[in-house]
């Protein structure tokens, strides 16, 4: 009998559609070669957009501005609440306003290097080019970025880079950028160009004759399951970090849209590339429902340390300077506290594993602002980080101006996602994925302040250009209606799944299963992964899945507002996605970026890549629940940034 881990290798990904030629000319070339849709004909095309975060909001608004008929969905009660809103630190752009040696090429270089050489060069370069336009666009929309006294924009530096290129709006950059996109979206809704469906969740994808032609979605208020049709479908449904149960994602962020698309034929790339953010507030107990991130911009001025001695339980102010280990400054003298996220997270795990962690359970390290307060005064620290300090105090009941913060890594972002070509099209023609939902431009590790950049680049600029080409080449696709046999089948499958969830009437809650699989993933597919651990997880996941369908309890009916049902249905998909993440982690026997295999490290404990073997993106094809998937490799070619062992020492 073959098991799930006995995956097979299929044909390599043949064409990424990335143009050839000098890297800085490729985007222009692609845009020129792309076909356009006559403005008068755009109204005839309907585009479905799922999600209203930075990527979905900006895509919906821009497509509607261009004249397309947009039908857009979000599970929240308002498009303004998508989880992009919680991004704190900032957005990168190669404006070089600081005259500190920044350039498009440097942002490109930093991103490829920061991603540990597992991203596609053409895409990353395009991202760096577009970054400049994003800032212009957002300022024009009224995004209140921080400014200098002369009225010009302020910037700050972020982990993994040595220039100051991060634009910010206090600690609420994501909120302000999202509101900008939401307002642009609102303008188009009012103009009748967007049909907006809030509190409506996508449950499946409709593929007719090999093309994405619509979705099945459930109205979360009435429970009605309906079908929606279009000429193209754009998924902007975010990442899948909630597989881990505890993460910094919103409670309802989920993987259903991308996982259902994967089941219908879209390849899923690099699922094991997850980002563990180093600066989160440690958990306080079993009741913990989510984790809260503290912007990594804090590492600009805060110093990270633990006691030199194991089991030192003295309060921080009683530990003298020479008995403290500022371990990041010690190990990485040139980047110090600003090393990339994966490195900072692993270093924190290491010192805690050594028994030098602080706080309850020893699962924390100090982030200390005493020096910063002394150097620039409390007022300046307050101006920069005031809201973050307030948030910390509210959650922990400790005053970070007086007592060093305690932080610990937490799941934050997923670099993996649906495989897309240069046009952001998945392997299903007519299905596009933007923002965190795609496998993105971040390789194996994302640099700080780059998620906002990518979401807006995809939504405002890339997708609106590339989707034209698809729609122009497939002009009149013939009407799909509700009585089409494929539609009937997808609808019936969805209804059956919902009815089954309601009918099991077992003795365990959806949350209890979510927690169980999440803890398993955190232990075996978290900050450090090993062959033994991953095999254990792969053995356990199908058992949890079997138990789920035997013991799940969902009260109420499907024809009403039913949050337990929503949750249970999302857990169904986590229980399958978790398996693919573990398999991907198992097959990639190298360490790279956020993926750290214990078997592949340098003598001093750093991640060791194996470029000859793994310089590819792993795109997985679904074959059936619990059945061995097929691996398709996209070979990565580095013409401009030559892979080196990352060094931040």
């Amino acid at each position: 009998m073959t098991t799930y881990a006995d995956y097979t290798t299929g044909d390599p990904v043949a064409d990424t559609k990335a143009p050839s030629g000098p890297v800085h000319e490729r985007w222009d070339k692609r845009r020129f070669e792309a076909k356009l849709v006559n403005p008068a004909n755009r109204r005839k095309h309907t585009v479905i957009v799922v999600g209203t975060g930075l990527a979905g909001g900006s895509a919906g608004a821009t497509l509607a501005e261009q004249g397309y008929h947009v039908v857009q969905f979000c599970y929240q009660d308002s498009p303004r609440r998508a989880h992009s809103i919680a991004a704190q630190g900032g957005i990168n752009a190669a404006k070089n306003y600081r005259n500190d040696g920044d350039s498009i090429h440097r942002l490109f270089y930093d991103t490829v290097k920061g991603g540990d050489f597992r991203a596609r060069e053409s895409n990353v370069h395009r991202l760096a080019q577009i970054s400049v336009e994003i800032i212009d666009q957002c300022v024009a929309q009224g995004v209140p970025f921080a400014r200098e006294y002369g009225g010009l924009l302020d910037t700050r530096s972020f982990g993994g880079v040595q220039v100051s290129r991060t634009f910010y709006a206090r600690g609420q950059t994501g909120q302000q950028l999202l509101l900008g996109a939401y307002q642009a979206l609102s303008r188009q809704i009012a103009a009748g160009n967007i049909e907006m469906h809030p509190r409506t969740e996508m449950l499946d994808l409709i593929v007719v004759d090999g093309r994405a032609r619509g979705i099945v979605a459930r109205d979360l208020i009435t429970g009605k399951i309906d079908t929606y049709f279009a000429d193209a479908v754009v998924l902007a449904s975010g990442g899948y970090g909630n597989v881990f149960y505890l993460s910094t994602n919103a409670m309802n962020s989920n993987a259903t849209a991308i996982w259902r698309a994967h089941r219908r034929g879209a390849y899923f790339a690099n699922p094991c590339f997850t980002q563990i953010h180093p600066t989160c507030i440690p958990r306080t107990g079993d009741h913990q429902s989510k984790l809260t991130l503290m912007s990594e911009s804090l590492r600009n001025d805060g110093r990270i340390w633990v006691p030199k001695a194991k089991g030192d339980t003295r309060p921080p102010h009683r530990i003298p300077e020479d008995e403290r280990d500022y371990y990041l400054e010690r190990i990485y003298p040139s980047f110090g506290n600003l090393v990339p996220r994966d490195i900072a997270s692993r270093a924190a795990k290491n010192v805690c594993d050594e028994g030098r962690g602080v706080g309850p359970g020893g699962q924390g390290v100090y982030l200390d602002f005493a020096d910063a307060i002394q150097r620039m005064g409390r007022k300046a620290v307050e101006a920069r980080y005031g809201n973050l300090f307030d948030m910390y105090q509210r959650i922990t009941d400790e005053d970070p101006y007086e007592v060093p913060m305690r932080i610990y890594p937490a799941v934050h972002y997923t670099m993996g996602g649906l495989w897309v070509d240069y046009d952001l099209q998945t392997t299903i023609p007519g299905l596009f994925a933007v923002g965190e939902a795609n496998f993105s431009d971040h390789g194996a590790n994302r640099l700080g302040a780059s998620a906002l950049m990518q979401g807006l680049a995809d939504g405002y600029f890339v997708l609106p250009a590339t989707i034209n080409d698809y729609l122009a080449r497939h002009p009149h696709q013939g009407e799909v209606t509700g009585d089409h046999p494929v539609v009937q089948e997808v609808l019936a499958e969805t209804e059956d799944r919902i009815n089954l969830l309601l009918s099991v009437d077992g003795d365990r809650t959806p949350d209890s299963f979510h927690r169980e699989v999440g803890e398993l993933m955190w232990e075996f597919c978290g900050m450090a992964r090993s062959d033994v651990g991953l095999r254990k997880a792969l053995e356990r996941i199908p058992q949890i899945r079997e138990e789920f369908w035997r013991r799940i309890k969902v009260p109420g009916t499907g024809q009403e507002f039913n949050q337990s049902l929503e949750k249970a249905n999302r857990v169904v998909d986590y229980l399958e996605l978790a398996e693919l993440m573990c398999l991907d982690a198992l097959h990639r026997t190298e360490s790279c970026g956020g993926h750290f295999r214990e078997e592949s490290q340098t003598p001093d404990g750093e991640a060791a890549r194996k470029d000859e073997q793994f310089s590819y993106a792993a795109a997985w094809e679904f074959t059936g629940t619990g059945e061995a998937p097929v691996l398709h490799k996209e070979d990565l070619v580095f013409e401009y940034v030559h892979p080196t062992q990352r060094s931040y020492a």
Partner: protein
Amino acid sequence: MKLTLRVWRQKNADADGTMSTYEVDGISPDMSFLEMLDTLNEELILKGEDPVAFDHDCREGICGACSLVINGDAHGPERTTTCQLHMRSFRDGDTIDIEPWRAAAFPVIKDLVVDRSAFDRIIQAGGYITAPTGSAPEAHATPVPKPDADLAFEHAECIGCGACVAACPNGAAMLFTSAKVNHLNVLPQGAPERETRVLDMVAQMDEEGFGGCTLAGECATACPKGIPLMSITSMNKEWLRATRKVKR
């Protein structure tokens, strides 16, 4: 901690609602208020009862989804969002009343969940700057004095939760509307639509059935983001200025 909860239960928009009483035990002071409700809901599900429906998402005080009236106060006794309220603000043995936002313009959907789409329509009426993608000038073409940028930011912080409406004895949405009007109207980029913005947004606000403002000030006291009451005064000034300038 052991607590008695009196929770508003209402099956759907058309049904009558009632306060139901529940006991919860083993509550840690470090729990957030919503984690306390999670605990209750886990117990209810296992008993085969309908869990209490409430809106929540980011649980870090920024998405604006959570919306509970706790012991008569929007978002409870502290100046924060419900999700950032912790059980250390209560005492063992307390009885806590939990209700939805109460306002004519926010009809109840189920239990503690209300429909706030009226806010979206106020924004759609003019809470934006018309700047289609690709048309923007270079970001530094128009410097914005730092005090103006800071003032815009202060108003832009609004999370659209609706606590201002829930706290207002008239059920008015003045603070929400004024926050957006001020955010955009103090910026040079917002100037071309300055008059139509305030007139259209205020008109939409009235149409949605929100009450009138009597400057009670409850809104600014309840606002988790500290949007100041002066925001309303500034909007009134903008509105008067616009009515003089624009003939309709």
